[in-house]
């Protein structure tokens, strides 16, 4: 396929790897923010092409993984109601709540449906006027414009039986939380190309300057990631800390303005709890006042539900890049995709799932 296959060229990848090796003079630690990049790195063995002194650590960029337990529990409570059709991306169905998951709710009679686009939920709502249709809006800045459009169109068409359980999160505050941690290891970021497709990259300029950290907006194919790594190393080796754009075929400096405009109309920025990490100020989206009637938490009276997270799952440390998945004692034994302790083992973008799928037969590094 055009704009995919050519970015997987093995010879070009090896050339990039040789160049990275040539200019690297000391150890560096880079974090790729997005779970899609994590999967590409592990699947194609990109990290194995790099010099041993380069450490790629995996970031928090898996929205399913960072959705807090209490929101999963709220979803479970709403989905179990007889008058509800609960719609969600497929990734969320096996994410464990405190006691069960959405797939089990479905198996015991709940009407839980996997949809491809938030607009599908509107069609379901229009076709089922006697039911309440709820969409579980999970995702980063890449996905929030799609959810915003669903809410906007529901309002415009007067659809009263549609509502949104919103768990949208924002990437820059999470990067700042990682950079301000006393355990900080990250020296450069590969920023998430599709988040920046929507948002542009101006909001990263103050972060790069404040924390003196190179940030390279990077795509998702092997050559994109290798070029992003090379651009980071060039900055690190020369003492620069700038925002650069590797993924310029999709990302413009100002991002997608029509998408940003609708997101700003439908949502407002709120503090958000990240699973395994805790609350990060101004890191999530909630419905704005004008669209508050579409808030499923209020419509179904679950807004005040609170739960504690289980201690055994170390996904919070994985999501902050403090440990790699196979360094968790439960990895591959008490925690597998069939019986996950946390969402990082379930989601197709979760770092634990990537290591389980591609690396589980390798011993943990000493």
């Amino acid at each position, binding site marked *: 396929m055009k704009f995919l296959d050519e970015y997987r060229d093995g*010879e070009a990848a090896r050339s990039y790897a040789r160049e990275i090796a040539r200019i690297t003079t000391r150890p560096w630690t880079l974090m790729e923010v997005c779970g899609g990049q994590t999967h590409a790195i592990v699947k194609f063995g990109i990290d194995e092409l790099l*010099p041993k002194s380069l450490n790629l650590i995996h970031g928090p960029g*898996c*929205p399913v993984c960072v959705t807090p337990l209490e929101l999963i529990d709220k979803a479970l409570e709403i989905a179990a109601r007889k008058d509800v059709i609960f719609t969600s991306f497929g*990734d969320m169905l096996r994410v464990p709540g405190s006691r069960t998951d959405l797939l089990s709710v479905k198996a015991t009679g709940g009407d839980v449906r996997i949809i491809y686009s938030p607009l599908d939920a509107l069609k379901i709502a229009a076709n089922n006027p006697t039911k309440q249709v709820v969409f579980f809006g999970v995702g980063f800045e890449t996905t929030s414009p799609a959810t915003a459009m669903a809410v906007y169109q529901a309002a415009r068409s007067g659809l009263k039986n549609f509502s949104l359980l919103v768990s949208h999160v924002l990437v820059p505050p999470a990067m700042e939380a990682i950079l301000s941690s006393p355990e900080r290891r990250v020296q450069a970021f590969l920023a998430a190309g*599709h988040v920046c497709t929507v948002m542009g990259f101006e909001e990263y300029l103050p972060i790069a300057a404040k924390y003196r950290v190179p940030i390279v907006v990077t795509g998702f194919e*092997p050559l994109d990631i290798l070029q992003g790594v090379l651009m980071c190393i060039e900055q690190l080796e020369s003492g620069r800390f700038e925002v650069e754009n590797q993924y*310029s075929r999709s990302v413009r400096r100002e991002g997608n303005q029509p998408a940003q405009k609708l997101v700003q109309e439908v949502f407002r920025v709120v503090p958000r709890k990240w699973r395994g990490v805790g609350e990060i100020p101004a890191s999530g989206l909630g419905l704005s006042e004008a669209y508050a009637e579409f808030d499923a938490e209020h419509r179904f009276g679950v807004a005040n539900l609170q739960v504690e997270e289980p201690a055994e799952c170390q996904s919070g440390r994985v999501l902050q890049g403090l440990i790699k998945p196979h360094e968790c004692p439960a990895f591959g034994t008490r925690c597998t995709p069939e019986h996950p302790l946390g969402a990082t083992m379930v989601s197709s973008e979760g770092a634990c799932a990537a290591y389980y799928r591609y690396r589980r037969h390798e011993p943990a590094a000493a």
Partner: protein
Amino acid sequence: MCLAVPGKITSITGDDQFSRVGKIDFGGVLKEASLAYVPEAQIGDYVIVHVGFALSRVDEEEALKVFEYLREIQELGELEVAAENEGPRPNQAAPESQLPRA
């Protein structure tokens, strides 16, 4: 979750910004996507699609930069090597990966 795939617009229906929908060809698989967020996109353009929405038009000129950048650094590298009159050091050979050969 942020998975987004490039595809080519083969037809467009709908008039106003919010109802514009494109039929997108993803390497032979046809699927519809909202073009509400890419008002500039036209038939024949490639767009990056995520959960039923086109989020950007692929800039075909920028798309070549990955390869141009590589060519430039290789030329630079050759010049430097020639200047230093030394071959690549043995520890710089990249190990094999699972990438297909070109």
